[in-house]
């Protein structure tokens, strides 16, 4: 390899590394309405798989992000489907009941989403197929107070998309 070519490659690699480092640090967008990731339409088989993945909500105890045996069983079923459809992506949403405060619940919801994420990661689901987001107590599934409603709101939901 001659010196000119090697220097050119080194420069190119340096630029790529700098660009990559900048992206890893942070990414600024103007806030514009719309701006969602483009998605492809699903085939019938994919739609059925997406429905099976979304259907099983998992629930948690109060102020806890430990997975119950039932939750683990549900996640095992989801993982096997997700692995069979590598073109699909799953957003794991962590939610909390109304009793805690907003900021702490955002952190707790993240831990709940992460519990499912890590469990399915250990079952072989690819990192590129999963995302996490915590909504804390912003979006209760069931309105009202009392343990019946609260127990339905301490949960992970699973949203499926087919990114372009």
């Amino acid at each position: 390899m001659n010196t000119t070519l090697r220097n050119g490659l080194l420069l190119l690699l340096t630029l790529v590394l700098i660009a990559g480092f900048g992206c890893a640090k942070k990414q600024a967008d103007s806030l514009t309405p719309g701006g969602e990731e483009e998605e492809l339409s699903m085939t019938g088989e994919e739609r059925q798989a997406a429905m099976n993945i979304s259907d099983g909500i998992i629930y948690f105890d109060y102020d806890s992000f430990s997975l119950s045996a039932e939750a683990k069983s549900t996640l095992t079923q989801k993982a096997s489907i997700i692995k069979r459809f590598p073109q699909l992506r799953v957003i794991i949403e962590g939610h909390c009941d109304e009793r805690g405060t907003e900021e702490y619940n955002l952190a707790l919801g993240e831990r709940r989403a992460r519990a499912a994420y890590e469990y399915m990661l250990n079952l072989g689901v690819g990192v590129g197929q999963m995302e996490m987001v915590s909504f804390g107590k912003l979006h209760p599934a069931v309105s009202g107070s009392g343990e019946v409603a609260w127990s339905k709101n301490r949960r992970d939901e699973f949203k499926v998309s087919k990114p372009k």
Partner: protein
Amino acid sequence: MSMTPSRYAGCGTSAFWAALFLMVCLIMPPSVSAALTVDVTSPGNTMTNIVQAAPLGNSSRAAALQKAIGANMTLLPFVNVINPNGIPGGGAISGATADGIDFKRFSLANAQLLITTNWNDPSMVELRCFSVAQGSLMFGNRYAVKDGEDALLDVADKFCDDFLEAVIGRGDFFRSSMAFIKTDGARKRDVWSVRPNGRYLHRLTNMQGEALSPSWSPDGRKVIFTHIDKRSHGLGIYDTGSKSTQRIKFPGNTVIGPTYLPDGRVAVSLTDGRNPSIFILGHSLEKQGKLDESQSIDVSPSVDAKGTLMAFTSNRMGGPQIFLKDLRSGSVRRISQYGNYNTDPSISPDGTLIAYARQEGGGHRIYVQDLISGQERQLTFGPGSDEEPAFAPDSYFIAFMSTRNGKKSIYITTRNGGEPKLLPSGAGDAAFPAWSRSMRARE
């Protein structure tokens, strides 16, 4: 109506009015000749009764000014505004100074403070506050007044801040700006700003998704906040100059409770590893370091005005509790000692108190702990849930979110408690009050 600094800078007559105001202040300096009689340390037990005498002079605007002053005074948790109709012989006085006032009549109605309005010159009004028991002037000023209702309300705000200056030593409450979050439809929350009396209510952001946890920059030019869309958290930054909003994404999944430090850097809870941890971001929002290496959830940083003390919530000892980090020595100590769930800390700018929300049977209640004595005091008692306390720049007033009236609203109390007063913020849920430390914030 916006009241931006630039708008006034461009006003040709502003220099004239400023000079005139300074001149009259020099001619008639505030007099604090009497010992103050207002007990601001134990509101609820000792309310101060204030009455306004019938206005002197020939201005047709005096009644509107008195109404605005009365409305402001009702927002103070240690003040009870008396109807002048209850004064024996009525609220009329024969002169604007102590010599022209029969204080006994006001004393019989249990009034402790008397406010007089003397308005002859259309461009200038004299406002005074007297101690009824001592029959002496607490303070008084002449205020330049322009045409229009806003100008009239500005005078009321200035006078009431002068009143607070006399009784609590800081007079910027009524002219301070508060950012807060207003719900605007399903899954839509935006940042708004307002003064504590409901004036200058403005929408700052208009985004898809939900904004939470606003915090003003020290110079009052920017507001940062958490922004959550359908699939991610981001750091929102609103610029009051350009009126534009940016959203910054970070690696990891959480952006929780950002707050500005006094030097313009930002403390925010991000996920780097398995737990949301508090990071310091530099002026370009680059990560400068983690608060500490605890294997726990750390959220809700709140920093004093010197930037030396940081309160935060952590579950490092089990449930969420309030901790305090000395940013000089690095030492961390637990603050909340009672209850299983203490969150939402707000440290007073003077670094002497921490307010926080404690979960109890019927919801959360606001408590405040004295960092010097270690004593804790309950400030709010519901009903509903009281959360998200925020100290004002004066370290005296505290705003918080409460559901006591059936929806999320912002109320104001003091570090000593007292009946919380509703902050008018229009329709829709209102939450996450955040006071600006700068008088520049007027958007």
